């Protein structure tokens, strides 16, 4: 890779650290697996960077690679990505020590598990409905209906939280 390209590549990676981590954790629900997925994604992105013709789509491109890696890990481990009982039990503790800084993880634990990716991609990563539809290979209508469900659930969560703070 040319030095100039390398600089842009590194800058892009740094700008997307949070997005990549939040996307991976929303799918894998496990820090070690998320770390593995990110590691594989970074190497894969580096190897294939020259294939990316439209560099302005770097974020979309790398998140797409990451999503594939995440599903690859799920398939390999034969794990169920949904939150398991032990984590559900821990939720109570997390709620008690609720910290505004960890609001995303908290929301993800509260909403239906099939909505996690959509919420991270739309609200956290700012991808459009069309981009999400392409990334996850699902129809745009499905993205919209899941977003509508997520919106309802998050609204309730925020209201409850506001109530707790005010009460």
């Amino acid at each position, binding site marked *: 890779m040319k030095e100039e390209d390398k600089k842009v*590549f590194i800058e892009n*990676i740094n700008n997307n650290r949070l997005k990549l981590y939040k996307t991976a954790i929303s799918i894998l629900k496990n820090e070690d697996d998320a770390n593995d997925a990110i590691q594989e994604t970074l190497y894969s992105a580096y190897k294939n960077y020259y294939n990316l013709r439209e560099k302005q789509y770097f974020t979309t491109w790398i998140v797409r690679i990451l999503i594939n890696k995440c599903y690859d890990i799920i398939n390999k481990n034969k794990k169920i990505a949904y939150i398991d009982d032990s984590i559900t039990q821990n939720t109570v503790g997390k709620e008690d020590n609720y910290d505004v800084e960890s609001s995303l993880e908290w929301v993800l634990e509260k909403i239906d598990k099939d909505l996690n990716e959509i919420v991270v991609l739309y609200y956290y990563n700012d991808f459009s409905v069309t981009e999400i539809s*392409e990334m996850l290979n699902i129809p745009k209508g499905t993205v919209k209906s899941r977003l509508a469900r997520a919106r309802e659930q998050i609204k309730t969560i925020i209201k409850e939280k506001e109530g707790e703070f005010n009460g």
Partner: protein
Amino acid sequence: MDEEDKKIKAFVSSDKKIPEKVNKTFDSFIEQVEKNQILENDVIDENNGTQFLLRFRKILAVAASFLIIAVGSNVYAKSQGYENIFFLIKNIIYNEEKTDDEIFSDKDIVISYKSIQITDEIELQINELQIKDNTAKLYLLVKEQKENLDSPLNYKVYNNENLEMYSSKNNKKHEENIYTEVLNLKNYKDSCTKLKLEIYNNNGVLLKSIIIDLLEKTIEARTENQVINKISQIELNKFIKNETEKLYSKDEMKNKKVIIIDIYDIFYSNGKYIVKYIFMMPSDEEFEKDKVQETTIYTNTIEFTSNNEDFIKVKIDTPEVFE
């Protein structure tokens, strides 16, 4: 994004936490890139314990695979009446030399030269089946875009009794964008009238299952897992939405809009797409108040052709309430 969305966004995006371990992964990777420590064909860093373990696991897996292949091929060779696998290979080479100058088949079946969209980035043509005795060769022409992440593809072929005739694993990535795949099918019989070709991506996910009718010389392609990659999803949605709206009068559509929720089945057969979908028609008020979930959901089927630019409706059914 409306006010409510902005509020939700502000709430969830206040989370800026990345675990130290993950940050270290980023830092270590960037350091390697900066110091040119990553070779493009060898991305393993042996100084990193996790990576080393990964490499060790891979080596172990490859070694185990070789052992399984060696044992399995010897068992197969014995079942075919040979002392061991070397005699079987020798026999195959000897037979191949004999047939070099022969025409492979006088029963070739030209199937189709029409492209089938496997994903947005991959097209495939099933060109020809060459037959000789109980072996057959299926010729595929594959066109890929460079950025495609599904490549290299793998294939499985079954006969009409659902017996496996071909299976590939870990195919190598082709350097060219357009290339021919030749699948050597085992146990071909003249009674074989249909073949099922399954196409998998590099993660082993089934992308498409195609039924090849050898008598009619037709191909029926079917997507799996409700993934529709055949044609532009956005354009298809628009087209179906428009055609569905046309089924209703202006009065019926007053203050309402058709929303395609899901395209759950799509077939391609004899130049025609047959698509089954579900939709709803919420009123503007329901839509604004987020009561879309409460509206009736309908199911319907539409048939159309495509000339790569436009969709041309052939037939659309009357919608039914989806239960």
